[in-house]
């Protein structure tokens, strides 16, 4: 088929099943946008490229399929980078397209030229610059393949303007072969056996589920395993929702702001079954006293994660779902009866004893109470996204989730400004779901311009602003570790979030009393347009419990 590069790009996207692109055009991507004009692919014009990247990321996390964003060269491309880095840290399949100056101008500091390939090398799984029109279909096929298989991650495709405009005979391959890219999916049977034996020998096992469980769709298998061997389950921030937090064996999240029961269980365990987790320092606390008595089974699709942060006694490289299936099959043959009764009783006692209180009636509002009302309001399939800071950790700690892909948060990069555009992407991916962003006031301000996008496109998400007029998390650290010297953390009196929302054409309301929370949520979700709820919270409320930096999980303080 003879066509222009831009036509080839759009045709390749269509063949990948792309339904929506988040982006902003510019000089170097006009040819592409000219073809998009006639295409069935929906384009959502965000108001900042960072918003586009996070929206594509939120879409990808909600759906488990690649999210697509697009920007022009130069500043458009650099504006994407925070979003790309965020997706990279959390292994999210985002495919980003950037315009580029025409090839004869590359390297001459042309107008809006930037070395986006060089800039994004360390924050993408891979990136490509198109060098000939004819290679476009294959490169795009590869981009989607790399982004969505193995350990997923963002892939960027840089599109010089002359490559969009030029014509060539092109063919669209059904499949691509990449010599140096062959992810391992099946666990090695010997390692699986070794893992099974360790499980049989253990009397205090704990399962640690990370984001990999969600990515591989292994929730069913995880539950089967936990119930089969009667092991308590803790999750990381990224693993939240991989195992129902309402389950009797669930101990909730672990880590710096985890549940006490979860941290204690990991510390006392004689076997840790870690699945799809990279042992982030926020999850492990000080590594030398992390799970000190446990043998560690580490199941991960990325061999480089094995032994990177925490030693693994029994590594199993493979896809979480397949490996768990293998493990369950082996265990069903070997296991007579789980002998973990006493252990489960013990952790249940912790769980009861440290069950956090949420039913505060205070004015100004306690964040716990808001989280509780949100939790009661939402259904199992509805989606929560978060910004970063105390707001994120309140959601992480208190807001129970029962299904995968219903809790979306920037774990690795901790990107303020992520939650709102991610909510937009998630809502586009799952229009039938309620979507709410648990936001800090500081974070919301970082991508508040996307109110224009959601209003224009009737993407009816709700932003719950936990308004403390502080960069609260930083303030908390200054309070606890820097003698209350509050340096550059006050956010002042403005803006009035209700009026800002209204000015954008969204619904806005402020809540001061606990009794008003539920009604406000109902109003916001029924508003027929995007909504912002300004929750005026106790300004110096801290997120506890907390493991002070550089300490052990068991040293968690109230």
């Amino acid at each position, binding site marked *: 088929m003879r066509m222009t590069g831009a036509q080839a790009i759009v045709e390749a996207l269509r063949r990948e099943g792309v339904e929506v692109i988040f982006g902003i055009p510019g000089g170097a991507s006009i040819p592409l946008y000219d073809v998009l004009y006639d295409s069935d692919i929906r384009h959502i014009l965000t108001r900042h490229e960072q918003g586009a990247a996070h929206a594509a990321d939120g879409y990808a996390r909600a759906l488990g399929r690649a999210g697509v964003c697009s920007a022009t060269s130069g500043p458009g491309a650099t504006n994407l980078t925070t979003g790309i880095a965020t997706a990279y840290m959390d292994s999210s399949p985002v495919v980003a397209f950037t315009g580029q100056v025409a090839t004869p101008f590359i390297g001459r500091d042309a107008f809006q030229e930037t070395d986006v390939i060089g800039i994004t090398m360390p924050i993408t799984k891979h990136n490509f610059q198109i060098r000939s029109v004819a290679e476009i279909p294959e490169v795009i096929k590869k981009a989607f393949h790399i982004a969505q298989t193995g350990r997923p991650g963002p892939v960027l495709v840089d599109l010089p303007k002359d490559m969009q405009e030029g014509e060539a005979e092109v063919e669209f391959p059904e499949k691509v072969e990449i*010599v140096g890219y062959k992810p391992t999916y099946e666990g090695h049977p010997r390692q699986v056996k070794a893992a099974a034996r360790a499980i049989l020998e253990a009397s205090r096992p704990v399962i640690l589920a990370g984001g990999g469980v969600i990515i591989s769709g292994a929730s069913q298998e995880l539950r089967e395993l936990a119930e089969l061997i009667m092991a308590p389950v803790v999750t990381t921030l990224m693993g939240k929702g991989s195992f129902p937090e309402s389950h009797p064996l669930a101990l909730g999240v672990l880590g710096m702001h985890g549940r006490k029961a979860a941290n204690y269980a990991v510390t006392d365990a004689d076997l840790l079954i870690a699945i799809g987790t990279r042992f982030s320092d926020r999850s492990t606390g000080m590594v030398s006293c992390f799970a000190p008595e446990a043998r560690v089974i580490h199941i991960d699709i990325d061999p480089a994660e094995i032994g990177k942060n925490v030693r693994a006694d029994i590594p199993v490289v493979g896809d979480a779902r397949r490996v768990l299936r293998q493990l369950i099959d082996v265990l069903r043959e070997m296991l007579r009866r789980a002998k973990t009764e006493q252990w489960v009783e013990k952790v249940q006692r912790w769980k009861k004893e440290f069950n956090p209180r949420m039913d505060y009636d205070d004015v100004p509002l306690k964040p716990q109470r808001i989280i509780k009302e949100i939790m009661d309001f939402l259904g199992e399939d509805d989606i929560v996204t978060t910004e970063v800071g105390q707001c994120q950790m309140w959601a992480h700690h208190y807001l129970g989730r029962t299904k995968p892909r219903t809790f979306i948060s920037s774990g690795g990069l901790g990107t303020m400004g992520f939650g709102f555009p991610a909510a937009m992407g998630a809502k586009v991916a799952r229009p039938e779901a309620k979507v709410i962003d648990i936001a800090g006031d500081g974070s919301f301000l970082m991508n508040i311009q996307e109110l224009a996008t959601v209003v224009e496109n009737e993407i009816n998400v709700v932003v719950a602003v936990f308004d403390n007029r502080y960069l609260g998390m930083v303030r908390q650290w200054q309070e606890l570790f820097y003698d209350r010297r509050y340096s550059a953390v006050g956010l002042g009196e403005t803006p009035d979030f209700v009026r800002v929302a209204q000015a954008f054409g969204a619904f806005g309301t402020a809540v001061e009393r606990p009794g008003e929370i539920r009604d406000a949520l109902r109003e916001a979700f029924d508003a027929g347009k995007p909504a912002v709820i300004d929750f005026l919270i106790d300004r110096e409320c801290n997120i506890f419990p907390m493991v002070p930096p550089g300490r052990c999980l068991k040293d968690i303080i109230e």
Partner: protein
Amino acid sequence: MEKTHYIVALVEDRPGVMQRVSGLLRKRNFNIDSISVGATEIPGISRITMTVRGDRVVLEQVMKQLNKLIEVVKVSELNPKESVVRELALIKVSVKSADARAEVVQYANIFRGRIVDVAKRSMVVEITGDEDKVNAFIELMRSYGIKEIARTGKTIMARGTKTVAVREQ
């Protein structure tokens, strides 16, 4: 135990692949002493040789992280004791007298080096060998006055029939 490891990566010969490899090593905070690149017996595949300092854990991480790069086809560690390790150096030496000239030629012969350029007041010697040999020769040349040194970085190949080669795809 901290040690120098020889790592060979076969990579797709694409623009930017050296930057991917060297950028990765920098971003992961690995210590690299030497890195060199050249063509292989397979068209489109280049060979990068690097020496990395660190213990076993570091070595394992370097290899695994390199393997994750899409354009890296194969990564191997070679034991220098079971391999041929070579480096090539070009050394421009000043020769102020006929005696000096004769001596440099003599040394070059002893080291199986070659005189590859001769000018009135200088000569260029080409020397190949392992690091120690090249260093020893350079030391000897110092008394004559070294004007310039160009070294290629180390390259390595296993002795015997063992290879790191990939099958032609």
